[in-house]
């Protein structure tokens, strides 16, 4: 199964378009193999979900994509350009990352939204800022709010808007709703859906079976740092029954 998908991979790389591609990528830290020889092609459109048990390397996969870490071996490419030929900071601007926790900067919401563009010497107008708030369904008067006084859900939405301020082509989300209440989760999922419709590629790590069903178009199923399966969400839920799928989401036994 793995060998076969790798062969497909090679064929696709020969000339054909490869929007986001991993070729034999491994990531090893302190002699722990977190990502184990992954080869995969991810579409440039739609919402791709990354699922799998805890410790299967999902977050590491996103960090590799944002290049917060570099692959130990193998090659990652974006639009057929190898990662090591793209200036790292430019790449990060194009591929935004929303972490599991918001990690906002001091002090106001506006400070956070303007942070990214300021790196590139761009200043945002009031209209730009309000547009960003609209995208994450936050009231306009939030601009001057101290981020410390926001709820967890509001903070996470600010963190999404902060990434969007960079105008990314691709947005990576690492379990963005895992710490949120149902209402905030719904708002954020709507935001994500809208972004995808606007043409931003979404890659989301999720722990929730329901969220996977609601949100994603394709699925990558990771286990022990390997891809077990790459399929459309529909197919996935067709192929396996509820009980089997719940098993996939179960925490991995501790080493």
């Amino acid at each position: 199964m793995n060998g076969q998908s790798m062969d497909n991979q090679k064929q696709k790389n020969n000339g054909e378009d490869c929007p986001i591609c991993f070729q034999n990528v491994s990531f090893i830290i302190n002699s722990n193999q977190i990502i184990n020889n992954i080869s995969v092609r991810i579409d440039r459109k739609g919402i791709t979900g990354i699922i799998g048990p805890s410790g299967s390397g999902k977050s590491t996969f996103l960090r590799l994509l944002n290049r917060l870490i570099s692959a130990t071996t193998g090659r990652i490419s974006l639009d057929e350009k190898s990662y090591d030929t793209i200036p790292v900071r430019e790449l990060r601007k194009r591929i935004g990352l929303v972490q599991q926790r918001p990690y906002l900067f001091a002090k106001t919401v506006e400070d956070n939204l303007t942070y990214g563009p300021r790196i590139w010497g761009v200043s945002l107008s009031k209209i730009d800022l309000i547009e960003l708030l609209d995208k994450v369904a936050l009231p306009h008067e939030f601009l001057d709010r101290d981020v410390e006084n926001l709820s967890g859900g509001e903070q996470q939405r600010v963190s999404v808007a902060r990434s969007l301020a960079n105008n990314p082509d691709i947005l990576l989300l690492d379990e963005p709703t895992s710490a949120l209440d149902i209402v905030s989760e719904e708002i954020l999922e709507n935001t994500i859906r809208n972004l995808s419709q606007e043409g931003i590629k979404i890659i989301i790590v999720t722990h929730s079976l329901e969220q996977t069903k609601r949100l994603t178009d394709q699925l990558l199923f990771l286990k022990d740092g390997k891809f077990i399966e790459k399929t459309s969400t529909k197919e996935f839920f067709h192929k396996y029954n509820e009980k089997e799928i719940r098993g996939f989401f179960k925490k991995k036994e501790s080493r």
Partner: protein
Amino acid sequence: MSLAPETEITEMLFRILFSILLLTLIVLLSYWQNINLEKVFTWSFVRGFIQILLMASILIVIFELRDLLILYGVLLFMCVFAAYTAKNRFPYPNIFKLELVAITTASIFVMVIVTTPILTIDSTPISIIEREGTYIIPMGGMVIANVMVMTTIVLERLIADIKKSKGTIEAALSLGDSSWNSVKPILKESFRAGLLPTTNRVAVLGIVTIPGLMSGMIIGGVNPVIAAIYQVIIFLMILSAGFIGEIMIGFLFIKELFTSEDQLKISWFNPK
């Protein structure tokens, strides 16, 4: 200068014996309060006492020398020792190298400045401090010791704060920010943390404390006003060398902690 006369030595022997009573008191207090530092206290005093006695005997020889190169050689040795001591506080790789570069560069730079003649009065070259072992060695030693303490504070603060703000630093990086920018606020705070204790000591100068160098000179029979001026000079030397050392250790450390691709080396915090 030569060894002290015999009667003075006997007197001093009694003095040190009696002062050991104070060490006993410290150890007892530590035992009573369960601080668990009895061994550390005893060992560091014994070690420190032997070291400083050796140093004193060497000084007797060195003070005879007027060769600046040898004096600077002695300072260099002190820098190596200071860097080694600083390193032991951190269970991380390459700290010795960073501390050695920072302490040596900062201290020697300032020592060169203060011993370079600026003008001549009656054909005698005048520099900020006298170009003699009796000045260069103790004052240099004070500078080096203080740079060591200040750089250690900066490192401690940096490591703690970067560990604490790892998420925020990576948030900045993930937006495309440079590693340097992502830690700028943390770096600034650590510089302040390193500088403030010395700055406070300067602020209370003369009112709350008569600091070491001035006391020493007064005990040695120097006019208090001259001693006071030297005290101000030594503080300026400490602060300038300390500041340079802090900036150097900060820069070197950040360089050590990030890859050339603006990635935080997380594994650095978990050395094998």
